[in-house]
């Protein structure tokens, strides 16, 4: 970091283009990987760090410096980062500083990338204690995103090109396929490696998605033509690694690798793979809620990395080295996947096993046992199907474990209690009999948001056909998807059935009431 700081400092004071070029070239020539690559990234805007707000810097200083003196100093210097860098009191314990050498730029980037927002201030303060004034200034410029030292991306690339016999245009050509810290680029221009292939950029291949298995569809399907595997309860991801790049994409092609540095670090191969992202401890898949703690984070702390290790259970292989396998049939791809896996033994992956079966009833029985955590149900994949993008019909089916949901029709609504007393918030719903009559099967009063409650209340008021005290009867026009834990015979209901813990899973504003479920569907769940 101190070397990088001296470079920044010198650049800031060097007006001429040639002078800047010379400084950059010397720096790139003298520093090892990945330090020089991170410097290049910092100067070309290629580092995306959680930015520290000026308020955070002020708060750190306020803990250490008289606020009056700070204000006067800031007035005099005119720049927050510079004032802070100059005024920061050196730690008293010289021994302590000796034990902790100043961080490298690579360390700063790695730790900041892995840190949560709450961890940033302590990290920055620790480094400020270890760096000299120029180092502190550069660090603060880096974390506040104010790296204005008059270096254009073009000058930086020209300096890299100047390390060897490579024209800057050639650097531009491969640039878009590269990522910090640019080891292959430096290797190439210094003659220590091949030209990076700009096509080697780890890009996303659109995923193949499945349809829910509709009732009765199995009857038309030949068991021998399908492979079955468990549908793991994680996040579907695509791994894309080219040697130069390692990416982890979500189903929609969003790069989610930043939240999973532990996994990304192990992608030391060249392949594109399809799998389920999970948290796995000692070979056991943790509940989805554990995975959720690692999601939607731009960065993740070391504690969480240890307590919630990320894992990928592989379903498919799309690209092996240079070879695009997507045109092959599922069976052929599976064979390639198994070969690839046994050759590579990737550190944080395993294979999603295929489930042996010969008849549908046999599989149905297996599926019934799939209530264990982390298994959502089954996937059926046609053995002859290539890997197709999107949601093509007739290839892949998801057969979720017992849904225990039925689509019911709203029949009556009743005012709630307490703060809900002005809303119609308790709903009685029914199913169609074979005779086309609607019979009540249960009552639900939760499972919807406050916004949805207001919409439901409005719908009830606008579609009332009858009033009985606090209860309104409504026309049969709104479908509610009801989830429940079980169903049993009951003499208290006209339908003869009673649900356990029914709740509104979804309001099907889109679904015509006539297409709601019939009573036999519920009877089948007895």
């Amino acid at each position, binding site marked *: 970091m101190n070397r990088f700081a001296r470079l920044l400092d010198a650049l800031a*004071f060097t007006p001429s283009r040639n002078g800047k070029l010379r400084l950059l070239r010397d720096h790139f020539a003298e520093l090892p990987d990945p330090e020089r690559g991170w410097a290049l990234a910092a100067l070309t805007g290629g580092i995306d760090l959680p930015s520290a707000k000026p308020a955070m810097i002020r708060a750190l200083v306020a803990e250490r410096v008289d606020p009056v*003196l700070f204000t006067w*100093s800031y007035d005099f210097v005119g720049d927050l980062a*510079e004032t802070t860098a100059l005024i920061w009191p050196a730690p008293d314990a010289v021994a302590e500083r000796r034990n902790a050498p100043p961080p490298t730029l690579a360390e700063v980037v790695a730790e900041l990338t892995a840190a949560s927002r709450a961890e940033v201030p302590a990290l920055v303060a620790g480094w400020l204690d270890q760096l000299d004034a120029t180092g502190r200034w550069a660090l603060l410029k880096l974390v506040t995103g104010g790296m204005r030292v008059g270096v254009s991306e073009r000058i930086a690339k020209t300096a890299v090109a100047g390390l060897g016999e490579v024209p800057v245009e050639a650097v531009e050509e491969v640039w878009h396929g590269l990522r910090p810290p640019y080891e292959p680029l430096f290797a190439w221009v210094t003659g220590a490696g091949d030209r990076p292939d700009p096509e080697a950029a780890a890009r996303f291949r659109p995923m193949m998605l499945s349809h829910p298995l509709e009732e009765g569809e199995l009857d038309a399907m030949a068991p021998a033509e399908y492979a079955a595997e468990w549908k793991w309860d994680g996040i579907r991801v695509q791994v894309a690694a080219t040697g130069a790049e390692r990416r982890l994409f979500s189903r929609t092609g969003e790069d989610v690798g930043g939240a999973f540095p532990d996994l990304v670090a192990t992608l030391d191969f060249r392949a594109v793979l399809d799998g389920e992202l999970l948290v796995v401890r000692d070979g056991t898949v943790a509940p989805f809620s554990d995975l959720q703690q690692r999601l939607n984070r731009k960065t993740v702390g070391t504690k969480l990395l240890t307590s919630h290790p990320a894992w990928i259970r592989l379903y498919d292989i799309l690209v092996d080295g240079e070879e695009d396998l997507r045109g092959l049939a599922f069976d052929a791809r599976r064979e390639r996947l198994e070969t690839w896996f046994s050759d590579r033994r990737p550190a944080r992956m395993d294979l999603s096993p295929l489930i042996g079966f010969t008849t549908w009833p046999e599989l149905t029985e297996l599926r019934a046992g799939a209530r264990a955590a982390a298994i959502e149900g089954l996937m059926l994949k046609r053995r002859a199907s290539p890997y197709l993008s999107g949601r093509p019909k007739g290839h892949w089916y998801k057969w979720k474990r017992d849904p225990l949901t039925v689509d019911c029709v709203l029949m009556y609504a009743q005012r709630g209690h307490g703060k809900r007393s002005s809303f119609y918030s308790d709903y009685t719903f029914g199913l169609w009999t074979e005779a086309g009559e609607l019979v009540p099967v249960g009552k639900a009063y939760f499972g919807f948001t406050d916004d949805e409650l207001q919409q439901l209340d409005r719908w009830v008021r606008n579609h009332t056909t009858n009033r009985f005290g606090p209860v309104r009867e409504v026309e049969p026009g709104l479908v509610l998807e009801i989830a429940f834990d079980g169903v049993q015979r009951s003499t208290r209901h006209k339908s003869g059935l009673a649900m356990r813990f029914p709740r509104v899973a979804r309001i099907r504003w889109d679904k015509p009431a006539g297409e709601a479920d019939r009573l036999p569907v519920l009877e089948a769940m007895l």
Partner: protein
Amino acid sequence: MTQSVPAGRVRPEDWLMVRPEGLYCAPADLHVDPTRPVARAVVTHGHADHARAGHGQVLATAETLAIMASRYGAGFAGRTQALALGETLSLGDVRLRLAPAGHILGSAQAVLEHGGSRVVVSGDYKRRRDPTCPAFEPVPCDVFVTEATFGLPVFRHPDDAHEVARLLEQHRRNPDRTIVVGVYALGKCQRLLRLLREAGYDRPVHLHGALEGLTRLYGELGVEVGPVEPATMAARERLAGAIVLAPPSAIADRWARRLADPIVAMASGWMGVRQRARQRGVELPLVISDHADWDELLATLRDVGAPRVWVTHGREEALVHAARGMGIDARALALVGFEEEGS
């Protein structure tokens, strides 16, 4: 805060006061570093904001008198009297002694005793080692009059050796270019020469004409600076790869631009603040100062242990604030004619 005065003592402000021409000690009829001609002056050091020509009598170290004579001519004062460091002179019932200030060659603090109390007027000073002059001596006193040129906590000067190493690294990396360093003619120039020699640089250093006289005088006064040569434009080709020292006014001007692809450097405490350096068009700022930085100022207040401190010559308000935080009765001494010296 008011200071109780023991019986028999005279309060320092009753015998030492601020006058338009400078700090005046009435019972000795003596001014300290007056900026206008007076009958009798003690001059702490040779810098122009402290040492003026035209006084009736000047008391100073022999080195300061020599420097004044070299700058203003032999007749710069009616009479002069050299005082050795540590030597005591009685002027009426005031005792005057000079103590080393560590600022430049010949620099001294004026130690004044009268009516049972002692006031030390530091002049300009620094606390770190300077190979051209003896180190500052902390003198315990009742009132300490301190400078505050770098009286903000953003001024924390690095080691001289570190800065000289940066200069020499630039020199090594740019063998075809001339490095021209802006230095004040008195003090900084000769100190930098000595620091370069201590860092092992033994090639001739080229001097702008304006620096030659005082550097020669330093040599006569016993401060050896190694081989120096005039930086004349006739020798322009030979100046590629050389280190040239020049007064600050010359480094940004046409004179410097005629050098071989010059790298403009400047050696000054102000160089610690980037904006200051950039305003002067400096490419290589070297933080080498002859004034105490913030930490040195605070350390000196602790070392002299004065219950009262008068602050002048710079950023009075911040140092007054910090001194009060240390339990010291501090206030700004409004001195006229003392401009920011810029060294």
